[in-house]
């Protein structure tokens, strides 16, 4: 793989790390969703950088476009769930969601 691939991979690894760290440590539900968005950015960067490094930019773009559509659906569903949770608990704190023991 060409050197530019590693270059982009370096940045997207940082993004994914930041997103995962936030998922583990943050408490506000909406902030958790923002963390998911950051992870998605990292993933779409990897996808596109791979296509760029191989010269297959069109297939990579098709993948990224589809992934973004999936992401929108996901965010919409997640926000619907969050709003419903807010209606129940009047709070956006994930620590209020501990009735189930997991």
């Amino acid at each position, binding site marked *: 793989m060409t050197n530019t691939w590693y270059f982009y991979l370096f940045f997207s690894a940082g993004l994914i*790390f*930041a997103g995962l760290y936030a998922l583990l440590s943050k408490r506000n539900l909406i902030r958790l969703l923002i963390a998911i968005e950051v992870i998605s950015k990292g993933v*779409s960067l990897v996808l596109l950088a791979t296509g760029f490094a191989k010269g297959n930019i069109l*297939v990579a*773009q098709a993948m990224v476009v589809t992934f973004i559509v999936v992401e929108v*659906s996901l965010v919409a569903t997640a926000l619907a769930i*969050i709003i419903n949770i807010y209606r129940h608990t009047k709070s956006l704190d994930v620590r209020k969601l501990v009735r189930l023991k997991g």
Partner: protein
Amino acid sequence: MIVQTALLIGMVLFSVLAIFLKDLIRAAISLAVASLLLGIIFFRMGASYAGVFEISVVAGLITVLFILTIALTNTGEEVRESRLANVVFPLFFVVFVIIDALVMKGLLQKVPALPSGPEAGTFGEVLWKGRTLDLVGQIGVILAGVFSVLALFRKRDKHD
């Protein structure tokens, strides 16, 4: 290359800000700026369609959805985040970046790749003719999202 590096650093910076800013609205806007920068990065890689999608959908639509939700769930009382996690993050992040750089350096030339042939067609052809099943999947996931929102916001009589 310099411009690309600057854009990438900027994007990572704004993403990290989006996670750690206290005010949710500012966090959402920071996320939008990061998406904008990512879209520009995509443009400069030659992926104009992905760039357009990233800017209009992620920086536009998703930010609007976020701001809508933030407005609807405006308690007035803040969720107290763990201060320890916030303080420790820069340390962890710097350590990770160093490990990351070393790993990438070590992996240089180590990942084998087959040479790939020239790409045929335009983006439209590749998407519509080459990856048609993805489009069916997109329709499926859009339907799923729409019906999910309809189901989750339906008028309910007391259940549970």
